[in-house]
C-alpha cells in the first residue's frame, strides 16, 4: 500500500472530518480530500483519482448508504475500497451496508487503533 494514496473523507460534521484527516496524517497518509455529503462526494469520486473512500452514514442530502450504492453501481468506481465510519449501530443497518458492498464498518466513537486496523485490513485484502 502506498502512502501517496488519495483518501476522500465524507462527513457532514467538519470536526469529524478534521479528526479523520489528522488520524490519516498520523498514519502517514497526507493526501486527503473532504466532502460534506454524498451529493458533493460523488462528483469528486467520478472525477477520478480517489483511492479510498471513508464515509459517514447519516448525512442530510445524500446519506452514506446511498453514496455506497452509487459507487458500486458506477463501473469506474465499483471496486473502490469503502469504509463506513458511523454512529449507526443497528444490526440490520450493518447487514444492509455489507450487502451494499461496504469493505469495512467502524462505529463511532472509535479509537485510532480501530481505524488503523480496519484500513490495513482493507488495503491488505485489496493487495492480495
Amino acid at each position, binding site marked *: 500500500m502506498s502512502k501517496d494514496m488519495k483518501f476522500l473523507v465524507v*462527513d457532514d*460534521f467538519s*470536526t*469529524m472530518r*478534521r*479528526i479523520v484527516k*489528522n*488520524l490519516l496524517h*498520523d498514519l502517514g497518509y497526507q493526501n486527503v480530500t473532504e466532502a460534506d455529503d454524498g451529493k458533493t462526494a460523488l462528483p469528486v469520486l467520478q472525477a477520478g483519482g480517489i483511492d479510498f473512500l471513508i464515509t*459517514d*452514514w*447519516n*448525512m442530510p442530502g445524500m*446519506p*452514506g*448508504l*446511498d453514496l455506497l450504492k452509487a459507487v458500486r453501481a458506477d463501473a469506474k468506481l465499483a471496486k473502490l475500497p469503502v469504509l463506513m465510519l*458511523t*454512529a*449507526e*449501530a*443497528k*444490526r*440490520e*443497518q*450493518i*447487514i*444492509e451496508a*455489507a450487502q451494499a458492498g461496504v*469493505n469495512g*464498518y*467502524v*462505529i*463511532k*466513537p*472509535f*479509537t*485510532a487503533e*480501530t481505524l488503523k486496523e480496519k484500513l490495513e485490513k482493507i488495503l491488505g485484502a485489496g493487495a492480495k
Partner: protein
Amino acid sequence: MDKSASLQAQYGARIEALVAALKGDDRSAFMGALDDLVHVRKPALMGELRELTVNLQVALDRFRLDSRLADLAEKDIPDAHQRLAHVLKMTDEAAHRTLDLVEQSGPPAERTSNSAAKLLPSWQAFRARKIELRAFHELLKGLDAFLPAVRADAESIRRNLAEVLLTQGYQDLTGQIIRGVMLLVRELETALVDLTRLSRAEDSVSPIGSRSGNSQGHGPVVPGVTQGDVASGQQDVDALLSGLGM
C-alpha cells in the same frame, strides 16, 4: 313566516299534481311530478350533505392531529428529554476528558522546559569553549539523562494530543442527536399551528410526516431511547460482519 303556509306554497301544487297523476294512472305525468318534487328538495339535501362532509373532514383531521399530538406528548417529548440528557452527559465527559489530558500534559512539558533551562548555561559555556572539565562532565551526565527523558515526555504529550483530537468526536455525535430533537421541535410546532387553524376551522391540516426507514440513518445510539437490535460495540460489529463472510 307561517310554516304550513310555506309548505303549502312550496309543495301543495306539486303534490296535488302527483296525486292526480297517480289516480289517473298517468305514468309520465307521475314521473314528471316526482322529478319536480325531488328537484325542489335537492339543493337543501346537497347543502346538508356538504355540511356533513366538511364536519367529517374536520373530525378526521382533528383525530389525526390529536393522535399525533398525543404521540408527541407521551413518547417523543420524553424521548427528546432523554436524548438531551444524553447530550449533556456526553459533552460533560468530553470536556472532562479533554481537561484531564491537558492537565496531564502540563507536567511533562514543564519538566522538559526546566531540564533544558538547567542545562543551557553549561551548554553555552561549552559552545564558547569556556567550560571547566568538571562542569563538562556534569553537562554530559545531564544530557545523558535529559535526552531519554525528553523523548518519553514528548511521546506522552503527543499521545495526549492524539486523544484530545479523538475526544472532539463528541461534537459529531451530540450534533446528530440535537438535529433529531430540532426536527421534533419543528414537527411539534407544525402540529400546534395546525391545531390552532383547525380550531378556527380554516385551512386544512398539512400532513405530518413521520421518519422511518434505514436509508437516511437513525443517528447515534441513545441509551433508553434507541429501539431495535443494536450492536454493542466495534467487537460486535466485527463479529456480525465476519458472520456475513467479511
